[in-house]
């Protein structure tokens, strides 16, 4: 068969139902194979960056590998921000790019770019296929590498002549990748040491990150915290690792987290970090993070242990597995006093919400959104104030998901990620939270939403500002000057109407819930534009 057909066959073997992509000269054999096969749905995005973000939203909603396709040259370079975004947040993706003919490579021909070289700093692994016969094995390896260990994006760059080569379809049953053997089970001795430390701790605290979600370990985390009676805080990427209604849930840490959660970390005598790299935003940039605590660090990626935090007991392995082992080995700890101490901190510091006439208070709106959507809702957020308003105020419970770009902080993520989520789960409510800045960075995806009739509700917070940057400018550099988009904003309602969507503008907090319900029940793409005071703060 043709190598291009083999690619599609491999996609089917990996149970890929949907790919997000944009065609071009160097991937036409693959597109022809997709068309002939007809079993793999192709979602045409309007920009390659969105293909990767959509694949990311798809992967995070289904828990499987997302697939994005782009052509050579500019198609490939447009994928880059999406790839870096996925890499920073450990999202399992396979990205397929077309490449110019092998005999032309290296000559700077039309639409040639070294995409394996360009993506090398922020990709889990990449392949430049020079031998068509190896394609089936490479495809299998790529899916395996993307989805196991610490997940991440894997790129396969395939020259157009390779796609057209006839091959024998041979795929090994067992993969032998001698340089890739992620540790899955936690070391028994280390787990015993961790348990011993836990037993002697007076003020233990668990701090979780996105690793809990990747390991599908939310149940094990909830069970362990409940059995051992240990409070849990989380990083931004750890949102959703534990429901806010869990008795031991204690909130989000970090520079944009909650003061009570940060103080809890400061007072703990033992911190169990699970699936978090605990970078600068989580430690609020302070050198005194967990200053009173000894640290047990559990991560599937050994390179994260000891990188940002000095660690007493490292445990390398899968969070789900290790949490189960810890759960089996622990007896309930006497933490009543400690839990009461934390509760008293939480009660002292809480955020007041003020309503201003003519404006919607985004913090209240996001709490209200929690009442309106169901427990299966997938919410995406962009970057900036809208993201942190959502992170701090949208209540995570049930099977809700909140997807955003945590590590790279990529504006324009929300809308295409929502596309991926809705394609993955047409029956779930999908709400894309955006600011007026980030919305305009991915606005072209309205076309994808329209074409595929995706009933996504876009929740736009319009403060006519690049709000978070403006806030930093005002505080750090004085209020004399800021880059604003005040006069450049379009009429957003008219804009979505041009794509055939409905839209409503909300200027009063108390009107929000009713408008949101109408939008969700319409079963169609819908814009809910909330007018927000430009002075509204992030925290």
């Amino acid at each position, binding site marked *: 068969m043709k190598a291009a057909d083999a690619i599609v066959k491999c996609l089917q073997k990996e149970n890929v139902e949907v790919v997000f992509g944009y065609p071009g000269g160097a991937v036409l054999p693959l597109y022809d194979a997709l068309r002939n096969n007809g079993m793999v749905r192709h979602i045409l995005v309007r920009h390659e960056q969105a293909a990767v973000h959509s694949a990311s939203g798809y992967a995070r909603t289904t828990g499987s590998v997302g697939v994005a396709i782009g052509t050579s040259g500019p198609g490939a370079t447009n994928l880059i921000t999406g790839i870096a975004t996925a890499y920073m947040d450990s999202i399992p993706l396979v990205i397929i790019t077309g490449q110019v003919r092998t005999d032309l490579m290296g000559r700077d021909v039309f639409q040639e770019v070294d995409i*394996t070289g360009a993506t090398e*700093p922020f990709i889990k*692994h990449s392949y430049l296929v020079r031998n068509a016969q190896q394609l089936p094995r490479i495809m299998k390896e790529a899916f395996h*590498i993307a989805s196991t260990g610490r997940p991440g994006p894997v790129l396969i760059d395939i020259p157009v002549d390779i796609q057209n080569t006839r091959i024998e379809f041979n795929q090994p049953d067992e993969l032998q990748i001698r*340089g*890739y053997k992620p540790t899955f089970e936690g070391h028994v001795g280390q787990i015993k040491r961790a348990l011993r430390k836990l037993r002697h701790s007076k003020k233990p605290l668990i701090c979780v990150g996105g690793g809990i979600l990747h390991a599908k370990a939310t149940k094990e985390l909830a069970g362990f915290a409940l059995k051992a009676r240990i409070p849990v805080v989380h990083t931004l990427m750890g949102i959703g690792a534990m429901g806010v209604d869990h008795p031991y849930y204690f909130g989000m840490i970090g520079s944009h987290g909650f003061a009570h959660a940060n103080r809890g970390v400061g007072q703990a005598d033992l911190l169990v970090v699970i699936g978090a790299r605990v970078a600068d935003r989580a430690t609020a940039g302070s050198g005194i993070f967990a200053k009173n605590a000894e640290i047990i660090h559990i991560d599937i990626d050994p*390179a994260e242990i*000891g*990188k940002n935090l000095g660690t007493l007991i490292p445990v390398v392995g899968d969070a789900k597995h290790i949490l189960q082992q810890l759960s089996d080995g622990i007896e309930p700890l006497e933490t009543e006093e400690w839990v009461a101490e934390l509760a008293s901190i939480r009660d002292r510091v809480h955020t007041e919400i003020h309503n201003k006439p003519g404006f919607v208070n985004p913090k209240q709106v996001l709490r209200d959104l929690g009442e309106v959507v169901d427990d299966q809702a997938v919410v995406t957020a962009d970057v900036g104030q809208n993201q942190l308003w959502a992170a701090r105020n949208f209540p995570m419970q049930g099977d809700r998901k909140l997807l955003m770009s945590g590590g790279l902080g990529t504006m324009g993520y929300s809308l295409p990620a929502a596309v991926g989520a809705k394609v993955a789960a047409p029956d779930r409510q999908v709400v894309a939270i955006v600011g007026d800045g980030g919305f305009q960075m991915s606005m072209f995806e309205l076309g994808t939403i329209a074409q595929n009739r995706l009933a996504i509700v876009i929740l736009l917070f319009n403060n006519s500002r690049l709000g978070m940057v403006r806030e930093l400018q005002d505080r750090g550099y004085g209020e004399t000057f800021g880059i604003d988009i005040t006069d450049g904003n379009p009429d957003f309602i008219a804009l979505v109407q041009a794509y055939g969507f409905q839209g409503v503008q909300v200027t009063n907090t108390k009107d929000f819930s009713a408008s949101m319900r109408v939008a969700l029940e319409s079963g169609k793409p819908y814009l809910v534009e909330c007018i927000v005071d430009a002075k509204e703060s992030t925290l």
Partner: protein
Amino acid sequence: MDRHVISVLVENHSGVLSRISGLFSRRGYNIDSLSVGETEDASISRMTIVVRGDSYILEQIKKQLNKLVDVIKIVSLAPEASVYRELVLVKVEAGEKTRASITGIVNIFRANIIDVSPSTLTVEITGDQSKLQAFIELMQPYGIKELVRTGLTALQRGDQQISQVGQ
């Protein structure tokens, strides 16, 4: 900062060297030298990398290298348990008056003269870094016209092989 010699087994195909050198540059690790070549197994190359850094940096380097799918194995080669060698070629000015004394030094160091011209000698010398340094300093007064070095390469002492060493 301490000097460390690490030996890395990698897949022998294109792009691997750039992945490894890219990792060092973007994470700000200092490389003194890097030498690479095929091993007894043609599908595997072995790199000898000399780096500077404290124990934190060394641990990070090893862990980050290990994350690369093309990296098969990494070991640190401690000076007391390893043999280090480097090869240097020196083209030194050598007229009729100085040729004999240069040849004398070359013999003492068990180096080899591998090329001669009316005005120069090209010397090949192998050894550990202190020997090479001493030789280069002795050549300097004659006038070194060109010098090239391979970078350090190393193996564990005794019968131990890299494939048998725990990481």
